[in-house]
């Protein structure tokens, strides 16, 4: 390959230090930059409600009102109950869906025959909208946790599946040959070359899958549920309490962002070896 020994001295030590410093500054400034937009939205929201009263309280509750409701719900223990019900469902459904997707993707990714047999059907199922599943899942599984977790698992399955299959098909044939040269068994080849090489795709799939699990959660909780953030939404609507709906929506956004942030941290650590464009 190319010889970096030649190019390295060309970049002087002060130059490298300056680059590092610039990168560190931009990293430290990053959280502040990310906060700018939410803070601006909050200000606009405040101006449109409490200050200028463009919206009536039953149309759009003010931020102070929402904060009060959130505090009340938290103090009464309701918020925690709904949040833990939802988080439990998302984690269970995501774990089941992602694990199944991992197994199926490896089979489909490794074999053309399995791909031809399974992939068209899976792609068909993938295009069924989340809400369309609900009546049938209730019909088959009754009312309870099973249909909800199943729906979330379906939602988490497809992003992981689609990404990992294309990840496996993008593994460099030359690296696979290294495995052949050392006489690796098929299982070893998957574990030691194919899955690590497809890891960037797998992690993208997991992140999108987790996001989709949260989306499907609300569909799962909209119907026949007595707990969870989706239930809070419906409950707020039925009792004409837009402030409760707002608390549910903001909590969903916060939890979604938080769980994605956790996966991003995992991603950054697991992919420290990659040598790819990081943006400028």
């Amino acid at each position, binding site marked *: 390959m190319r*010889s970096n*020994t030649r190019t390295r001295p060309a970049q002087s030590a002060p130059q490298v230090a300056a680059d590092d410093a610039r990168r560190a500054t931009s990293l430290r400034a990053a959280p502040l930059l990310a906060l700018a937009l939410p803070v601006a939205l909050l200000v606009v929201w405040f101006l449109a409600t409490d200050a200028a009263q463009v919206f009536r309280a039953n149309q759009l509750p003010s931020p102070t009102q929402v904060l009060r409701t959130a505090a009340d719900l938290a103090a009464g223990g309701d918020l925690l109950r709904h949040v833990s019900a939802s988080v439990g469902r998302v984690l269970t459904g995501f774990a089941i869906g992602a694990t199944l997707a991992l197994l199926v993707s490896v089979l489909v990714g490794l074999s053309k025959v399995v791909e031809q047999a399974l992939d068209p059907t899976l792609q068909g199922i993938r295009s069924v909208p989340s809400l369309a599943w609900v009546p049938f899942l209730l019909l088959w599984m009754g009312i309870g946790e099973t249909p909800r977790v199943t729906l979330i698992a379906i939602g988490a399955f497809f992003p992981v599946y689609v990404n990992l299959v294309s990840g496996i098909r993008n593994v460099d044939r030359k690296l696979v040959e*290294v495995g052949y040269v050392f*006489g690796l068994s098929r299982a070893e080849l998957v574990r030691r070359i194919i899955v690590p090489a497809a890891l960037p795709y797998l992690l993208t799939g997991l992140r999108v899958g987790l996001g989709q699990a949260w989306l499907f959660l609300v569909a799962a909780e909209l119907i026949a549920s007595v707990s969870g953030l989706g239930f809070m939404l419906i409950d707020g609507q039925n009792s004409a309490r837009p402030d409760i709906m707002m608390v549910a929506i903001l909590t969903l956004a916060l939890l979604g962002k938080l769980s994605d942030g956790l996966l991003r941290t995992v991603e950054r650590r697991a992919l*420290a070896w990659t040598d790819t464009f990081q943006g400028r």
Partner: protein
Amino acid sequence: MSSAIRIERVSKSFDAGAPVLRDLNLDIRPSEIVSLLGPSGCGKSTLLRLLSGLERDHEGRLLVDGNEVVAPSREVGFMFQEPRLLPWLSVRDNITFGLDAKARRQADPLVRELIEQVQLGECANLLPRQLSGGMAQRVALARSLATEPGVLLLDEPFSAVDALTRMRLQELLLSVWQRRRFTMLLVTHDIDEALYLSDRVAVLTGRPAAVREIVHVDLPRPRDRRAQDILRLRAHLLEALRVAGSNQLTGYGTPFGV
């Protein structure tokens, strides 16, 4: 530790196309270094891949240590044109990649010794993206030797590094060989490389490849790259290659006058 290679009337064609190799014969003694030199695209790499078990379905016999080659084995090391390091593994883990799980876990003295021999002592924990081309190829060399193969096959291993790095790598390869004495079969485009390293140079004809001529390099090592004997052999090989190459342009078969 070191194995003999016997190539007996080996022919190979891909998917009913024109043959790539035809009736190729070559015997290599244990610890010998042999270079394959030939027009580009003549099938040198195919021969190497057949010997390693990466490529199959040939006619004739391929024997390593008297055993027919049926699949890749740890007895036969292979070094590719590119380093092909696994980017998620450190230098050390790349080197031990071919070992079984138990040997990988132990801090094997053999591995430490190998890392020293390819002069990567301080780099054991670096990732491949932090290495220069020459360093990466040294890791690849150590990796292919970690299973202690009796045979090392090298497919234009130094063709992608600059001239100076290439010479250093050739010297390094010889110094490792002098300690371990594996048999080496090397595909190269580089006449100087062939003359610097090999005991014998096999000049192949164009497609389908057969051995056209074998040139003995009976000179002690380390060799002076500009010695009179080397330059004489160089001129001879250049002429042999020119004839082999022109043969390829006229199609296949034996040219008149050979």
